């Protein structure tokens, strides 16, 4: 056992610059933490190890942005929604999903969960983040 004092956040963002989406996998139970943190929130193991996620995912819920829930910068996303996303590895998180609008919302909602995949998106402020795109 070796709990390391290490820069997990910096490595996550630097990996995005290199085109890789990194989470952390529990060495005891296999649970994947994404975004990456030190410990496993499933079994409580102190340690997790770097793990590149496949990017395959499913959308479980759809909320469209509106006056209260958008920012000028988000225009760059094109058509998008917010929702619960489940990675192929089983991890669930709130995320942005591109390709959803008022037009296809009802049709997609009836089909939930729908397939999507992770993409790297450049934010203002000199860093990249992870969003999801619908598989078509």
């Amino acid at each position: 056992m070796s709990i390391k004092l290490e820069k997990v956040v910096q490595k996550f963002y630097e990996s995005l610059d290199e085109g890789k989406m990194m989470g952390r996998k529990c060495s005891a139970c296999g649970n994947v933490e994404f975004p990456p943190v030190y410990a496993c929130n499933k079994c409580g193991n102190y340690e997790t190890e770097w793990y590149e996620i496949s990017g395959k995912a499913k959308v479980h819920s759809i909320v469209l942005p509106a006056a209260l829930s958008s920012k000028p910068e988000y225009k760059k996303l094109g058509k998008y929604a917010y929702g619960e996303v489940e990675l192929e590895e089983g991890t669930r998180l709130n995320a942005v999903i591109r390709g959803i609008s008022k037009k296809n919302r009802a049709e997609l909602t009836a089909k939930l969960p729908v397939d999507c995949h992770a993409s790297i998106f450049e934010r203002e402020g000199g860093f990249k983040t992870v969003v999801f795109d619908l598989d078509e």
Partner: protein
Amino acid sequence: MSALGKYSRSVSIIGVGCTPFMYTVDNPETDGLTEGEMFGYAALTAMEDAGVNPRDVDFYFHGQASPLNGSNYLTPNVQIANWFGMKGKGSIHHSEACCTGYLAIEQAVNAVASGKYNCVLTGAVEFGDSTPSPADNIETPKHPYKRDKMTMDKFLRTTSWLYDRTYTRSLMAGQELIYDDAAEWYVRTRGITAEQMNDTINWMCINNRRNASVNPLAIERKTYEELAKEQGMTLDEYMNSPFNPRMGDFLRAGGVELKCDGAAACIVCATEEIGRIAKNLKHKPIEVLAIGSAACEATTPHFEVRATEEAVRQAYEATGLTGDDLDLFYANDFIITSHLISAEIAGYLPYGEGWKYICEGRTAWDGDKPINTNGGRTSFGHAHAASGLADMYEACRQMWGECGEHQVKKLPKTTMLRGYGGAQNVAAVLIRTLDK
């Protein structure tokens, strides 16, 4: 998942105090009120209500969501103890943002149940509508009492402090889902239509406002019926008009908090010591039965739902009570859907049927399932940290039968308060009037 143990001894609320919720800078009579004056008023009225002297109070808890921005203080508890006769006494400041006032009860009860203190004050103050003058930035020297209105732009910039800087803000979703996630979850899991959710959201606003209209401490007291009449519209037309614009995917303007200024406080005492300490006791003690707690950071899917389910489960498992035992319910509904989903998760309203109770007006103060009898965050107002204790003030006064014009029909004995806030802490506070 945590299981709650039994308190080492019984703890009761014996007195409550609350200021009106207001926009202090908008009225010459209240413009210039300070932290010591607001908190001091709530604290002293709570002590008077409990029949205790400040010298009998061992310690106090001070809640304020954003003391640096709102008061230019790092240690707000230290600055004001002398305003209510507790100079030199120990105290601690805490912030769980909008959940502060509910977890203020948790802090106080634990301190007394442990045996460390017999009687404590727990209070909170917030200036949600203004900041010390000049309002340019937190670093410049501030005037002793003058305040400037807080712009919506500044408010929104400081609310970003509620969210994880390392991942959540960057991922862009958690902080935006606060407005509509609960509505989407309810529509999808209960199988109602978006139109039915729209009506339900409107009726929560209407009911909250009806409650506030008969509560002198509430910030907004003109009913939606009156507002519609002024525009020559029916109630339904008004609620779906540009006077109540759509601001979120489901949410309309009327379903968002009225951020404002206010303070509230409670006196919490070891039940076995009440006779000795509260020499002028006025009411039956209200015992704190259990407080369930959970917190989900905003990248957690359906954070409000998940944390509420867990907090409620803890409180019910610890007490053996169920939703059927509740006579009265409060939900911190700064986003009004909280009101529906937490009452249903707590079993106060039946699964999948809560929206109908709301649309039939049964959850207004004079209905058979009253919720937020003070008017809730959209009509009573939201002085962030103080709101939970203002709800406790109202709950206790309802349970003592002291609410006059808006006293609920059946005297409530058992009440749940569902605290929520700070992206996102949740508390499920269960209280019951003691039989003498």
